[in-house]
């Protein structure tokens, strides 16, 4: 039997950063991960570290994450290939450009410093962008990082600060005996703690449902692809207003692209699917003409949780004191993850998060009946 202050289910970037901040604050923590830390969404995502384009309600938390990303080496001991290349959101039509203008106005005051570029300015500053674009919005301090390195490093650093990290250790049963949680794992561990953090990503719905607060979450599988190393041309990470193909280039020259949806192979594994892959290969050259003739060497996908409003659930359970949820990041939790871990830590250590979390309360689904 293991007695700790908090048990965290899920070793993705959210659970691992909670483990890191809690251990730094002197709390005894056990992080339980079914597979390997950072082997799901957190380790296989596109690697976009961007604030631009998020709903306004996420921007305070996202801004906080931005500061944490700025200290990444101090935080996790590696640079994680993080670079503030800037994030360029492309508009394919004047309508889309208006939408970007609208966002730039409404997000003022959150520190994004967006720069709107018309067709000519875009060509002049980013000549590698295709002619189909009508303009863009540029966020100079957004960027990208290598998720394969960053997310596991959060767990590794948490361990260095004293957290118990158990990998290949699925949680199989959770009970609350009126005093504390009793958590059992497939490997036969039993853990007791007054706090339980549900950071189980796309799989978090099961625990929420067990405590009587089922959520209408579904799993999605963004399709990803990477090229062989190419000459360096992209000096910003990109996305497209209204969705489409996003792309970035890493320092060694490979371009990483995403777009469209793959499919689930089983509960925990996903593939990008030939349809999405072919669409990326065909359509990317319009937006990024330098890719013509380049070769894609690998494709992949992941399993991510989406709620109907594409906003996460973060904060207290409404039915079980001591239970905290943080899941449903809708394809955008990599950037914000470290700040979520920090906010959860504040709830445990000082009673409330410094950043408002009201928009993310699980109670917003209570009136919705879940079939």
């Amino acid at each position: 039997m293991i007695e700790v202050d908090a048990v965290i289910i899920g070793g993705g970037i959210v659970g691992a950063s909670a483990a890191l901040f809690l251990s730094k604050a002197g709390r005894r923590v056990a992080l339980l991960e079914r597979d390997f830390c950072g082997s799901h969404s957190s380790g296989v995502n596109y690697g976009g570290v961007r604030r631009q384009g998020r709903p306004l309600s996420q921007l305070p938390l996202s801004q906080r994450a931005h500061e944490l990303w700025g200290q990444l080496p101090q935080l996790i001991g590696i640079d994680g290939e993080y670079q503030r290349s800037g994030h360029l959101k492309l508009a394919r039509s004047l309508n889309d450009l208006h939408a970007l203008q609208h966002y730039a106005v409404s997000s003022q005051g959150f520190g994004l410093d967006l720069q709107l570029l018309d067709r000519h300015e875009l060509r002049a500053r980013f000549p590698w962008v295709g002619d189909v674009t009508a303009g863009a919005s540029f966020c100079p301090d957004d960027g990208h990082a290598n998720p394969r390195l960053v997310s596991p490093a959060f767990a590794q650093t948490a361990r260095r600060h004293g957290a118990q990290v158990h990998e290949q250790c699925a949680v199989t049963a959770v009970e609350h005996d009126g005093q504390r949680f009793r958590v059992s794992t497939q490997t036969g561990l039993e853990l007791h703690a007054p706090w339980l953090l549900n950071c189980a990503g796309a799989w978090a719905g099961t625990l929420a449902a067990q405590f009587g607060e089922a959520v209408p979450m579904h799993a999605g599988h963004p399709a990803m692809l990477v090229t062989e190393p190419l000459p360096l041309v992209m000096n910003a990470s990109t996305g497209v207003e209204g969705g489409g193909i996003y792309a970035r280039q890493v320092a060694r020259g490979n371009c990483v692209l995403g777009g469209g949806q793959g499919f689930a192979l089983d509960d925990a594994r996903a593939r990008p699917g030939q349809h999405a892959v072919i669409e990326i290969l065909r359509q990317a050259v319009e937006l990024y003409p330098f890719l013509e003739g380049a070769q894609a060497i690998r494709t992949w996908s992941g399993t991510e949780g989406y709620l109907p409003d594409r906003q996460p659930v973060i904060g207290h359970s409404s039915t079980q004191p001591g239970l905290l949820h943080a899941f449903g990041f809708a394809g955008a939790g990599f950037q914000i993850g470290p700040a979520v871990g920090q906010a959860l830590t504040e709830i445990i250590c000082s009673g409330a998060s410094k950043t408002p979390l009201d928009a993310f309360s699980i109670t917003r689904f209570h009136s919705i009946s879940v079939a």
Partner: protein
Amino acid sequence: MKAVVIIGAGPAGIRSAQTLMAHGVRPVLLDEAARGGGQIYRRQPENFKRSAVKLYGFEARKASGLHQTIDALRGQLDYRPETLVWNAEDGALDTLHEGRAARLEFSRVIVATGATDRILPVSGWTLPGVYSLGAAQIALKFQGCAIGERVALCGSGPLLYLVAYQYAKAGARVVAVLDSSPFSAQARALPGLLSQPATLAKGIYYRSWLTAHGIPVHQGATLKRVNGEQRVQSVEWSNAKGEHRLDCDAVAFAHGLRSETQLADLLGCEFAWNPLNRAWLPQRDHAGRSSVAEVYLAGDGAGIMGADAAEMAGERAALALLEDIGYLIPPQRPDSLERSLQRISEFRNGLERAFAFPEHWASETADEVVVCRCEEVLAGDIRKVVREGHWEINRVKAHCRIGMGRCQGRMCGAAAAEIIACESRRPVSEIGRLRAQAPIKPLPFGLEVEP
């Protein structure tokens, strides 16, 4: 109607096709190569006119037989050369032919994707002038040229002596054959090898021929490094007697073969660790049925057994397929094929002992040796990740890019597994299996799609 599809026009795929045709089932035969024949009986370009005997030696009759079979079937079956199968999902295969992507739905599929060399890198192996044994043989068979003027052939496996013989026969100067397996292992293996006396005789013949023609053959000889500035200038090797150096301008090396299993993986076949092949292989029963009802496996793509076995396994898998879709098949044939396959598999056991895997390779490989040349990952990079606590091969891949490049681990996967196992002190069977991802080979941007 959904097609019966065969992937791979090597000995296994061609015999599968022939068997299906003989029963009135017309398959689609997909092959990445331009002309049927597979690895061993790879054909020269149409305008080359060397004789079969010159190209295939002892194997000339078999090679011609197989080529005649495919030439005769060509017009009747739906044969699609230069067609890469790059993905499989949802009962369909995704293909690429001359820059066009297409889908082919299948009712049943026989996977006969063959094998490539197993490479265990040494210092200097990325220098120009270093080839795999298979590539050296292909240069000879396909292009009619040798890889150099003074060639050193190294590693182990039956291909080592065969390629040496073929090179010498073709007039190339073989400066030495450096066989990493000790003579004692080969003596111990003799009982198993006696189950296929003819094949054994051939092997002995190659070796005596080499000796008779003054070509130095060293056993228990470990290739240590390849030296050179712009290209290969010499090799260093060692044996019980000490360290040696040998001038040469080209090197070919490999340690046996490895199965091409990615498609079986994408098709959902179950895999199991196979100690003999020292690899994860898709599981098949004696007839070639995989764990997936519609998928059959034949030839070296599901475990290395050589060309003769590939032909038989191709026929056997086709018979299983026919039986499963309600055709009457010759009642004695499956048993007789399975018995022959069993005999070859005993021989194969012997071969594996004769050409023992160099167990010390991983511990003796220096940190500076490039293991993955696509991503320039060094042995030391892999070890560093292992020392950080990772031991599962897909995790190690995520951390140091081993197996993430162009070849997707087909070249470096086996070597990486050995280093991970050695460094983490686990058996190589206990570090997990590199998961296959599409595309099996690189795909170009801007491709066209068949409607």
